[in-house]
């Protein structure tokens, strides 16, 4: 008998809960409409006031009002998202309430108590649409302010709903945005085409570019940590362009050889009579330098171009591998290479780092000013032999995130060794071997080996 009663109470509770949810939905919609009204009123009021003053201002206002309306409409067009957004919290809250009430009800053993109590609890939650009643008495300015506030609130909700709906794309968009690179030249054309004569000249004559390049080169040299014995060193400038970075090297008295793929850029460099030797060469084809000859290499904003796959033959992974392997070979022992890069995203950064590690380099990514969007700069510091600690990054307000970042990317020497070839291996061995081979080649989509690897299917297939 008690059980039957309990069930009844449960049912009625559930119904009440539903009703409450519906009421809440209604109330939120009412709020939306109220805000809409307020917004419209405000725009009307503003327009009235402005008409007398100036016509162009009114035009501006109309545009603004239109935008407002559009945004409000956008917000309105998303009732399900809004509801879904509220539902989760509300459900949790309700669950808690129900549990509490359930306990109470058990204590009192009275059927009528919860029935009277719940409406009391539910009723105060009904929002008492306050703005509309007060609105007519207010001045146009206040109204406008209110409308703006309402609009902003909606925007926030809308944004939140949106973000939760498309977390992946939003995140991606965000990360791209964080790097401040919506206008990456890399996505427009291959480097030898993008840096044509016009672009090369523009690049070199732009004082901001010159300043940035000089600054980055300074920093790269600092990270290069050449022994300070006064002897000029032979350095490589990979992707030297018009020799802006090379000039900083010359200033320090070093002899350098510059490689670049853009003829136009090199022509500009030759015209400017830079001291270094220039070669037209594609870094992705490997470096045409004899092994062990150079004392260090720098590269300013160039290596990310290697990640482009602009022709069907261009495999970024292959190109990066050739580049890093030949770079590793041509550096003398204990030398470093500092490559300043603009990775499009974290995958690209890790692809470059992994390719470098696979070539035998030790080192990692140093991120300067990690907390700033604009000043943030990535330096891939690669070392041949030796296990010197990574240099400190600059501009770290909070120490921890940077340390984490550096630790995360630091990989040390390549650990995976190729498995011994076994002629008489089973099918499974063969599969495992092949998978390991693919992994060492840098493919990331290889499934991990498990006990199901290479196992025969059952007969029913």
């Amino acid at each position: 008998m008690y059980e039957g009663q309990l069930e009844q109470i449960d049912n009625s509770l559930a119904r009440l809960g539903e009703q409450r949810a519906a009421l809440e939905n209604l109330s939120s919609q009412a709020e939306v409409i109220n805000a809409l009204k307020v917004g419209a009123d405000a725009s009307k009021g503003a327009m009235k006031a402005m008409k007398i003053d100036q016509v162009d201002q009114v035009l501006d206002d109309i545009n603004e009002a239109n935008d407002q309306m559009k945004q409000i409409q956008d917000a309105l067009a998303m009732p399900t998202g809004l509801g879904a957004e509220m539902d989760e919290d509300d459900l949790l809250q309700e669950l808690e309430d129900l549990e509490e009430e359930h306990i109470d009800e058990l204590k009192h053993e009275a059927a009528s108590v919860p029935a009277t109590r719940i409406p009391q609890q539910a009723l105060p939650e009904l929002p008492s649409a306050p703005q509309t009643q007060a609105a007519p008495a207010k001045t146009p300015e206040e109204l406008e302010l209110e409308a703006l506030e309402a609009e902003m609130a909606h925007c926030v909700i809308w944004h939140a709903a949106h973000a939760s709906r498309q977390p992946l794309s939003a995140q991606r968009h965000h990360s791209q945005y964080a790097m401040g690179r919506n206008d990456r030249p890399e996505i427009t054309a291959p480097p030898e085409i993008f840096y044509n004569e016009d672009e090369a000249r523009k690049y070199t004559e732009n004082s901001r570019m010159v300043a940035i390049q000089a600054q980055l080169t300074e920093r790269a040299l600092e990270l290069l940590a050449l022994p300070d014995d006064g002897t000029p060193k032979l350095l490589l400038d990979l992707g030297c362009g018009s020799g802006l970075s090379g000039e900083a090297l010359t200033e320090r008295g070093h002899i350098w050889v510059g490689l670049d793929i853009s003829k136009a850029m090199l022509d500009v460099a030759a015209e400017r009579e830079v001291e270094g030797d220039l070669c037209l060469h594609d870094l992705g084809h490997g470096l045409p330098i004899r092994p062990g000859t150079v004392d260090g290499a720098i590269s300013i904003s160039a290596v990310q171009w290697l990640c482009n796959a602009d022709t069907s033959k261009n495999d970024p992974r292959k190109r990066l591998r050739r580049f890093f392997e030949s770079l590793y070979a041509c550096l003398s022992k204990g030398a470093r290479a500092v490559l300043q890069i603009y990775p499009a995203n974290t995958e690209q950064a890790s692809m470059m780092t992994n390719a470098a590690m696979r070539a035998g380099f030790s080192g990692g990514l140093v991120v300067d000013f990690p907390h700033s969007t604009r000043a943030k700069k990535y330096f891939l510091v690669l070392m041949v032999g030796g296990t010197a600690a990574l240099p400190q990054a600059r501009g770290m307000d909070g120490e921890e995130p940077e340390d984490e970042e550096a630790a995360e990317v630091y990989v040390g020497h390549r650990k995976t060794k190729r498995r011994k070839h076994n002629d008489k291996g089973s099918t499974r061995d063969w599969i495992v071997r092949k998978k390991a081979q693919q992994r060492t080649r840098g493919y990331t989509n290889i499934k991990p080996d498990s006990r199901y690897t290479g196992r025969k299917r059952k007969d029913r297939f």
Partner: protein
Amino acid sequence: MLQCHIKGVQNGYPLKVEAEKVETREMDFEPDFLRHIFPRINWPALREAAAAMGVSDLPESASEELLEDDDFLKKFHHALLEVHLEEGSLVCPETGRKFPVSGGIPNLLLQEDEC
């Protein structure tokens, strides 16, 4: 330019120099750098390349002791850093592939199937 092709390797080394126009540009004399770089230079290759560009006063062979000799260092410096190949080509000794040099810039670009 000498630096670059002296060290150029694709399938073979050293690249032969075919000079059409050679230019000489003054550079600061840095004995320290020369001593530093000397062990990495393949002397016969440098000598051959220098000869192809009209600098024929380099000795037959060179050793560490010669590095103390100022006269030798001057010659070395001249051949290594001051003589520039303006027009001509670099030829791979193995495949005969020519890399044209124009305006002092060697074009080392490869076809996709060559690398």
